[in-house]
């Protein structure tokens, strides 16, 4: 033992407590088996899922819940593809019926080119969902002003995009993300735009409570290995954040004492 006090490092959203700070998506994988293996390798406890019409022409096709099992992972249903508050509410009412829980991810998109959130419509949809008793984690822009409006409206978590969904560009605005982390009393998660492990480390070092990603793992050359890398990255970033980094200096400072030189 090194004598330091080790308490379990957990985070909570909407009254649920989690140890893993990595939430993974379930889209874009080769198949559901690879998807399930990646979620396991990531150590994830929460996975995002989408809601779509069943394929009536082939009801025997594989189903997500047979591989990524709801008794192993907390499902976080999303509203991907919704462009209005009403679309989002309708989708999540169905998701609540399909899954039986009220923790959801709201995303109201503006256009299909950049998939950036329509924040005015997102805020309106959030209010509709809260009125119906949902616990809402909100995908949003990295705008601290809108982030605060979401929190004041009752968001369970603030989830700014690091960069556009699926772009893999990493955090584009550290200053804004830092301001959002500083002002928020609910969990802040970077959601979207992470490309590789270092992006996740930086998000966690900055003080995010967790990171949500899909494409960075699913489109990696070896998704299972990248899932493992992301698990370590999130832990490393979190530990560095808690440890507190050394100050940056303009000049060198020797690590070996200069006194006693022969």
């Amino acid at each position, binding site marked *: 033992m090194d004598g330091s006090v080790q308490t379990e490092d957990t985070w909570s959203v909407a009254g649920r407590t989690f140890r893993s700070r990595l939430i993974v998506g379930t889209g874009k994988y080769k198949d559901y088996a690879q998807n399930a293996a990646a979620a396991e390798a990531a150590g994830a406890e929460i996975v995002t899922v*989408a809601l779509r019409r069943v394929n009536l022409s082939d009801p025997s096709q594989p189903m997500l819940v047979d591989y990524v099992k709801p008794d192993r992972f907390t499902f976080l249903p999303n509203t991907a593809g919704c462009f209005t508050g009403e679309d989002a509410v309708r989708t999540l009412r169905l998701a609540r019926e399909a899954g039986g829980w009220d923790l959801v991810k709201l995303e109201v998109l503006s256009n299909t080119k950049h998939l950036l959130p329509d924040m005015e419509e997102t805020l309106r949809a959030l209010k509709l969902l809260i009125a119906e008793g949902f616990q809402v984690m909100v995908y949003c822009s990295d705008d601290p002003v809108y982030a605060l409006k979401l929190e004041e409206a009752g968001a369970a978590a603030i989830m700014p995009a690091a960069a556009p969904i699926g772009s893999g560009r990493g955090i584009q605005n550290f200053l804004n993300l830092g301001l959002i982390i500083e002002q928020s009393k609910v969990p802040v998660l970077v959601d979207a735009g992470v490309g590789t492990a270092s992006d996740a480390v930086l998000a966690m070092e900055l003080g995010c409570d967790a990171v949500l990603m*899909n494409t960075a793992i699913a489109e990696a050359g070896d998704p299972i290995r990248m899932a493992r890398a992301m698990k370590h990255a999130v832990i490393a970033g979190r530990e560095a954040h808690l440890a507190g980094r050394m100050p940056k200096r303009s000049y060198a400072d020797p690590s070996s004492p200069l006194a006693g030189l022969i």
Partner: protein
Amino acid sequence: MNLTVNGEPRAFAALASLLDLVAELGLDARKVAVERNLEIVPRSAYGRTALADGDRIEIVHFIGGG
């Protein structure tokens, strides 16, 4: 009986309830959610939910997503 299921017009022999429709389509009721004419039908109510000609039914499930 003519229904619109997931946007497709379809003809069925007489169905006593929504539960019969789900079975007729070969779906596992535990893995789907259903809307009838834009109203959610709780899974526990499938058996007592009668269908009418012209009903618009949406049957959805969870798939992979980010």
